[in-house]
């Protein structure tokens, strides 16, 4: 009898432990003292640990910016490298607080997958990497070609759509990680490797002889990349969304890493509101008033993050293109701070 009571008690305990508390991500991050950020551990320019284990990249700096906004300490981030295939499950199950892993915003991910995309930090499109020796000038000539692709990506679906729409025959070879896909492509298993154009430049540099390969000019899809959070926590959603907007606004208003202290004395009311000198917009997010100042001091504004990781300050030398500010002919546009 005693044993029966014991097993019943145990069952009750497990049953109770199973019910999940209301989502309060900011609070649990603050209590934990560290932000769990789902990142790409494998993509030069976006997320890659260097030889010393320091994480670098465009998306990585976004994680740091959020940590700086919450803790006043950009090192309080735990980067969790995720494959494309596992990333949504990791976010859904609470393993990571935010997913910033060059992830394309789509309608089904926004709904059935239980994610909320907070914005677009990089406007991208899908392209192809091929050998120069093939003498291919356009993606439309790739009928019957074998294409290496990474699993669990929009890329995988766009590829099938593109070949279908253009009545071309497709042979895909699918790999769990981009690393394996590029290796197989480089070994000659495929004629082409396809992924977002931003990544293609980095992946090209990883082949044995980068000069033998060329990125085709065709862009076959829209790939708006951005951070995402779980459904059901509006406060956390607002924080992650506005970290992006603040970084863009900072660039637009000319607030940069080097001049942020000087800018706090600016007369421009918009700058004063953004930096928390005037008003209480930081507290409205559940953060301190000067969170933007800390972010900018840590990682710089949007333009600085871009140039350092992807642009002229990096080996990738990607031009701003669609990611220029709206005032300079691009698409990056953030709502005002008011």
């Amino acid at each position, binding site marked *: *009898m005693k*044993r*029966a009571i014991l*097993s*019943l008690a145990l*069952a009750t305990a*497990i*049953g109770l432990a*199973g*019910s*999940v508390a209301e989502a309060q991500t900011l609070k649990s991050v603050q209590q934990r003292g560290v932000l769990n950020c789902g990142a790409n551990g494998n993509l030069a320019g976006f997320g890659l640990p260097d030889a010393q284990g320091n994480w670098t990249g465009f998306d990585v700096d976004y994680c740091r910016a959020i940590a700086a906004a919450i803790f006043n300490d950009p090192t309080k981030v735990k980067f969790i490298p995720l494959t*494309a*295939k596992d990333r*949504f*499950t990791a976010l*859904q*199950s609470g393993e990571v607080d935010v997913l910033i892993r060059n992830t394309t915003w789509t309608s*089904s*991910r926004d*709904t*059935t*997958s*239980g*994610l909320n995309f907070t914005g677009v930090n990089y406007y991208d499109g899908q392209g192809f990497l091929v050998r120069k020796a*093939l003498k291919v000038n356009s993606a439309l000539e*790739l*009928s*019957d*070609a*074998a294409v290496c692709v990474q*699993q*669990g990506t929009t890329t*995988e*679906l766009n*590829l*099938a*759509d593109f*070949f*279908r729409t253009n009545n071309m025959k*497709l*042979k*895909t*070879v*699918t*790999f*769990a990680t981009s690393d*394996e*896909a590029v*290796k*197989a492509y480089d*070994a*000659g*298993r495929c*004629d082409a490797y396809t992924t977002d154009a931003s990544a293609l430049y980095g992946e090209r540099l990883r082949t044995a002889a980068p000069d033998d390969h060329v990125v085709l000019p065709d862009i076959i899809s829209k790939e708006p990349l951005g951070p995402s959070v*779980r*459904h*059901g926590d509006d406060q956390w959603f607002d924080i992650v969304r506005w970290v992006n907007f603040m970084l863009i606004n900072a660039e637009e208003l000319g607030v940069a890493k080097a001049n942020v202290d000087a800018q706090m004395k600016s007369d421009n009311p918009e700058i004063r509101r953004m930096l928390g000198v005037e008003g209480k917009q930081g507290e409205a997010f559940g953060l301190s008033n000067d969170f933007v100042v800390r972010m900018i001091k840590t990682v710089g504004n949007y333009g600085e993050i871009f140039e350092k990781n992807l642009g002229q300050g990096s080996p990738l030398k990607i031009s701003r293109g669609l990611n220029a500010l709206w005032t300079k002919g691009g698409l990056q546009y953030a709502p005002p701070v008011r």
Partner: protein
Amino acid sequence: MVDARATARPKISPINDPRWRSAIVQVLLCLAIVWLAYGAITNAAENLARARIASGFDFWNSTAGFDISQTLIPYTTQSTYGRAFWVGLLNTLLVASLGIVFATIIGFTIGILQLSKNVLVSKLAAAYVEIVRNLPLLLQLLFWYNAVLKALPNLRESLAIPGGALLNNRGLFLPKPIFGGAMDVVLAAFALGVIGAIAFRYWARRRQALTGQQPPVLIVSLLLIVAMPVVVFAAMGFPVTFEAPEMGRFNIRGGIEILPEFAALLFGLSIYTAAFIAEVVRAGLQAVSHGQTEAAYSLGLRPGPTLRLVVVPQAMRVIVPPLTNQYLNLTKNSSLAVAIGYPDLVQVFTGTVLNQTGQAVEVVAITMAVYLTISLATSGLMNLYNRRFALKER
């Protein structure tokens, strides 16, 4: 009328009655398990609903929209997720069943060679076992895959194998046989041959029991099963044509394609599992006491029949149960296909389908149920087989 039992035993409280107590404990335990399972399911459903993650099995009939490199049944990018599931499952079954066949053949050979009296042979066999079984399988698969890709020539320099086959790092391309209508006659001849061989074997057994003579079963069977259909095949004027693989703009078109991913996975799984099977076989053979062999020799049996009729049947009792484990391991290990791009069930279904639909709970539950079914079926078959070799106690 007095109840006989009541007088035979003193009336005791159910709490102190061991039968009652064990029944109550079991009922309570069952209830607790049911309650726990119910709680887990409702809790998961509630949390999924709260996070507004889709649930249910509606996705099964939605369009998949992705391509799969090896499909045993017709599949296009417009097929459903359900179809993709079957494609993945068949790919898993293909590599697992072929892997089991090859691993068994290699394993038995190496296991017997380990007991060879030739020192070089037995040491080489032992070295194979020790090297292969002590390296992680994933590492071996990556090694074989990269070895296959690196060692083979690229598309433009394909190796032409006599008979019209082509070999390069995109795979092995074999001529595809296209059978004519007269093939039915050949198949009928083959079926007749098999039936004839079984009948001859039956007759030979009886003859041996009656007279002690041994009719040449092997030769007659080979004649019936192999030679007769071949003669018929020739007599019908070779009713088969071959579609040779040819070079296209990028790839080879036509023919039967064997992907390097498949070859590497099959090779890696077979080699790895064979090392374990070799040990099982060696242990099984050594478990039969040497006295049995000596007794057989003293009865005048030659070494061949001794092994076949005396040692192996006794060894099989020891071999079959652990052999079943190895078959199950091989089937489950085939899910490592995901690392080298072979589209097995895990790669297609818990990989792409899970990611595209976002329905982790359903997809993982289905996959687990499938592996459980495959494993239970395998061990069920092996148990049937084992019963034949088990000690018959009379």
